[in-house]
Every structure is written in C-alpha cells, then in structure tokens.
C-alpha cells in the first residue's frame, strides 16, 4: 500500500511536469493545428534561462527570494525563443502543406539543442542546477510516504498556472479572441481579431508554462542538460494526445495519467517486462491504445473548450 501511494506521488510529480509542457502543445495545436515539435526545446531553454539568471545575478545565493527572478529569467528566455520560432520558422509556412512545418519543427529542435550545447558555457555535459531553500531540501514525510519539496513546487506551479490560464482563456477579451480563432480563424479575422497576434500569444503561453516546467525540472533533478527537451517533449506530446489535443484540461489530465502510468508500471508490472526499462514502452503503448479506441483522446470531445 505504501508502495502504491508512494508511486502515485512520484507519478503525479512527473505528470505535473508533463502537464505543464503539454499545455504548450495543445494551445498551439488548438489555434493553428500545428504540432510544434520543437516545444520540448522551449522547455529546455527555459531551464537554461533560469540557470543563466542565477549564475549571472545570484551566483551562490540559495535564498527563496531568487526563485521568482529565476522563473522570470526562464520565462523571458522561453518566450523569446518561442516567438522568434513562430515568426521566422512557422509563420512563413502557414499555408504550406502540413509536412513543411513539421519538418521545420524538427530542424528547429535540432538547431536549438545544438545551439545550447555549443554556446552555453559548460553545456556539453550535465550542469548542476542551484538548490533553492524551502523548495528543495529535506523531504516531507507523511506517514511512510516521502514527498520531495520540489515535487510540491511542481504540483503547486501546475495548479497556479492552470488556474491563471483558465481565467485568461475564459474571462478575458484576449482569451475570447483565442477561442474564436480556434473555432474558425477566417471568421475570427473578419470579426476584427488579429489572428497573427493570437497565434503569437498562443506560442507565448505555451512558453511560459514550459519555462516554469523547466525550473521545476531543474529543482527536482538538481541538474539539467541540453537533451532534456527531447524526451520530455515527446512525453508531453503523448500526454496532450492522451488527453485530447486542443483541449486544455485534457493536457493536464493526460499529463497526470501518463506520469502515474509510468510510475505504476515501474513498480507493479511483474517479471521481465516490468521495471524502469519498460516504463517508456508502456507509456507509448498506452498512447497507441488510446488512439485506437478513443482517437479524440480522453477528454477530446469538448470542442468548445479547444482554446
């Protein structure tokens, strides 16, 4: 029982991270029907942005007050990269056949990884991530279950970001614009909505959440490297599809489900096919199964919520 609860905690922590990244895929897909394959790299850039901010401005400080600055640095880096990406790589291809942006995305992804590896000092190997007081440190024990402080930070981040995003999409004018574009871009344009701007905002929103995820990842694992974006991006995309791509709540649910499945698969699948070396296979296998029986994803049916 303890094992089950502990793995649930592990899974939810991991899942929250996936969910934060998955939102980026889903928001962009909801607006322009584009799989921004390079979104995983936006997440990676966020982590490096936070590290750079800390190294340059607060090197050696581990007090809690630097955390907001690190998050800001992460967000700044991610959003800049995401907007540049949209402007120079995707926008010119908006009416091209859909293969073109996908291949561009692969190109952007490779380019960003290599750029960080080559030009960020020391990034050729793993870099230690600063351990900030309060959000890291000795774990919290609830009964027999250990909860990492960074895990709490991740889950709380997801809750806060999710709530803010919900408010933004459903209660602001811009959010209404987004929903309008997602439902019918042409009509939205006729109604006076600046579609280009909405698209940029979609990319930026995804980037903000990915940046927060980047910081969370750094705090959780105490290190980052230039390759973290690939697998995380792939998993997050899986999560987005799992939940129903284009559906915000779906991305969150999909992320959490995926994280829990991975953790439980490690623990409870017996024999040779269990353990960590098979958990990714089960996770991707789940994706295929869901697509077969419920192609629209777990929550995919709520088209109205697609922004």
């Amino acid at each position, binding site marked *: 029982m303890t094992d089950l609860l502990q793995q649930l905690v592990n899974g939810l922590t991991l899942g929250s991270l996936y969910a934060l990244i998955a939102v980026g895929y889903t928001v962009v897909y909801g607006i322009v029907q584009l799989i921004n394959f390079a979104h995983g790299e936006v997440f990676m850039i966020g982590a490096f942005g936070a590290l750079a901010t800390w190294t340059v401005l607060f090197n050696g400080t581990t007090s809690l007050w630097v955390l907001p600055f690190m998050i800001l640095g992460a967000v700044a880096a991610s959003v800049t990269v995401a907007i540049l990406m949209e402007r120079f790589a995707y926008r010119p291809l908006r009416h091209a056949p859909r293969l073109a942006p996908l291949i561009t995305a692969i190109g952007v992804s490779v380019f960003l990884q290599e750029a960080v590896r080559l030009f960020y000092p020391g990034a050729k*190997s*793993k870099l*230690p991530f600063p351990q900030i007081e309060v959000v890291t440190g000795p774990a919290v024990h609830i009964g027999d279950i250990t909860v990492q402080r960074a895990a709490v930070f991740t889950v709380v981040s997801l809750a806060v970001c999710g709530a803010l995003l919900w408010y933004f999409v459903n209660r602001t004018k811009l959010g209404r614009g987004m929903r309008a574009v997602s439902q019918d871009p042409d009509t939205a344009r006729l109604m006076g909505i600046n579609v280009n701007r909405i698209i940029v905002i979609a990319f930026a929103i995804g980037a903000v959440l990915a940046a927060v995820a980047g910081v969370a990842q750094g705090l959780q694992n*105490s*290190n980052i490297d230039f390759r973290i974006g690939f697998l995380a991006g792939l998993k997050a995309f899986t999560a987005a599809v799992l939940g129903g791509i284009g559906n915000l709540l779906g991305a969150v649910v999909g992320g959490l489900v995926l994280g829990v499945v991975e953790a439980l698969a*490690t623990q409870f699948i017996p024999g040779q096919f269990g353990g*960590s070396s098979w958990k*990714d296979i089960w996770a991707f296998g789940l994706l295929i199964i869901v697509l077969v029986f419920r192609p629209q994803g777990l929550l995919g049916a709520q088209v109205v919520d697609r922004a």
Partner: protein
Amino acid sequence: MPQRSVVAVGASLLVASLALAGCGTRDDSGSDSTGSGASQNKVAKIGVIAPLSGNLSALGKGIQHSVELAVKQANESGAIPGWTLEVAAVDDEGKPDVGKNGATQLAGDDDVVGVVGNLNSSVTQQTQPVFATAKITQISPANTGPTLTMGAEPTTAPKRQYPSFFRTCTTDLVQGKFAAKFLKDEGITNVATIHDKKTYGQGLVAAFTKNFEEMGGKIVAAETISADDDNFNAAITKVKPSNPEVVYFGGEYPQGGPLSQQMKAAGLNVPLMGGDGIFDPTFIELATKSSEGDLATSVGAPVDSSEAGKKFLADYEAAGFAEPSAAYGGYSYDAANAIINALKVSLKDASDAKSARDATITEVGKVSFPGVTGQVEFDEFGDTKVKVITGYKVQDGKWATVKTETVS
C-alpha cells in the same frame, strides 16, 4: 570605352597586388614542408578514433591530446630513428556508422600503423573488423566489455575475436570482482543493484552480482534506469523497501550523480557505489552534498599516485592542450606508448609504414614497460595484464583513495 577603362582598372589592380605581395615576410614553413631535416625521415601515423564532437567530446579530446603528447615526446626523443610519427585524429561522434567510415578512412591511409580508440563499445564492434582486415593495431583505452576480446562466452569459453585488438583498461569482470570483495570486506551483505541498461553498466552489474553472490552476499533488489531519464524516483521507490546497505550502480556519472542525490532525497540514505564511469569530479558536483560517502572503483593505481602518472599530468599541463586529459587520458597515453614501443622494433627495417603493420601487431602483443596506469602488458586475448583496481570514497567533496589492490 568602358571596356578599356575596365581593363585599365584590372591591370592596375593586378600590378598593385603584385607589389603588395612582394613586400612583407612570407610564411616559410608551409612552402617546404618536406624540406631539410624532416625530409630524410619517413612518416608513420598513429590514428586516434574517438568522439571529438558531440556530448562525449570531453572524453574524446582527452584521448586525442594524450596520444598527441606521447607522439610528441617520442619524436623529441628520437625514439624511432629515421621515422617521424604523426597523429591522425578522426571523429566517430560516438556513432557506429560514423566510426566505421572513420576507421575505413584511417585504414586507407597507408601511413597509419596503429590506432588508439574507440571510446564506445558499440562503435568498437564496427571498427574492429575494419582494422583487423587492414592489419592495423587497435588499442582501446576505454572499452571494458569482456566480449570485445573474449567473444560471446567470455567466462565459460573465451575465444579471441580479433588478433589486432588490444586494450589498456581492464574489463568489467575485474572491476566487478573488486567491488564485490571491497563491500564484503566492509561487512556488507545486502546490496541493491541499479544499472542504466547500457553495455558498460549492465556488464559491470552482472560481474558484480555474480562475484558478490559467490562470496555469500545477497542482491536484495535489481533495477534498471534509462540513460535518457533524469528522474529516477520510480526506480528508487521500488528499491527502497528492500533495505539495502549499499546501492551498486552500473553506469556513468551523468546519471550516477543525480541518482545519488535523488536517492538520498527520497530517504534511501545508503552509499552509492559505482565503477570508473562515475569516478569523475562531475559526479560529486551533480550529486551535491549527498555524495558524501559514495564509493567508486577505478582501474589501476591512481594516476597521480605514481611518479610516471605525476609526470604525465605535469607534461600534459605543460603541453597546454585546450581540454583536460579526462578519465581516459592515462590509458590513451599508455596505449600510444605501447604502439610506439612496438614500432621501435617493427619499423626498424621496414621500407614503408604499411609493410610494418603486421609486425606491429605481433610486437604490441609482446610489449612490457611501466606506464602511467601500471605495467603495460597484454595477455593472450589482448587484455591488459594489469589487474590493479583502486577503491575511492567521496570525502569532503573530493574523491579520496581508500585502497589499491591487485585482483587475482
């Protein structure tokens, strides 16, 4: 009219450039590279094939520079009269296909007589046959997989795979055995193993497990992690209830460091022990303070413990290479010197480098000299005879030597 003016401009520019090129000093070294003293010497090349770009480049560059150092010293001391040695470095990017092309390229160069490399076993598997066909000596400074020398059944029916392949580092079998004995001597009986499901990590854990169980120890849990992962909590949670006294980790420091840190953060407060893959300062950096008390084994006596080792490190420093010698510098230096020592015999009467290839393989098999990592000598499989392993422990944020022993 315009035509003529163009010609005029062209002509005057031509004159001006002639005049410009006329004055100033010329670079003389390039124009007669085969001039004076050097021209009497014949050229033989020692190849380096290692990841010189990509995420393993730090290790690869260390290998390259160490070989360069050995070759430079050999040339300066005139180790092989009548011959000048050169280094031909080729990048394998840590990828099998690229490595194979690089090996073919080296094999096609008639001046190449010996090669130091590769770093990754999966690459070596593809370069071995290429060098074997071309009869070029290949000495790996880093491949620890037993099958590379001893074939499919290294423990039960060892059979040499390629006569041209040697290595200066020991195999997983030796290191795993030492680690098992080390823990047993400390009175530890319950150990959990975790490996990264790569050739090196899995081989190390297999060797450890076998020896540890033979000595009466108990493997209470066996888990794997993925080298692509960063979050190992699921695996840690699975290992934790078995209450191990030590976690034996097969893998490299990029995963080992974070694993140690996450293990202790999750409340599994026991030392992590690993092989030479985690014996690196970066391990401590990545594992932060929680690495205190973690253990590692590494092949040979510590490089800086012997006179030869200290001299190597000092020379390396003095040569001013851009990258540090890294984990495999000493082995690469020894590998290069093994080839050089063999060349002393094989090149003596050779008319050209290519014809000396076959003899070099035989001679490398016979070398015996004191190297940086111990006495350099190869057994009938091409493995080093040095079976000296050192155990290290993290103390005050540094690797400290615990003991050095010869594994029988």
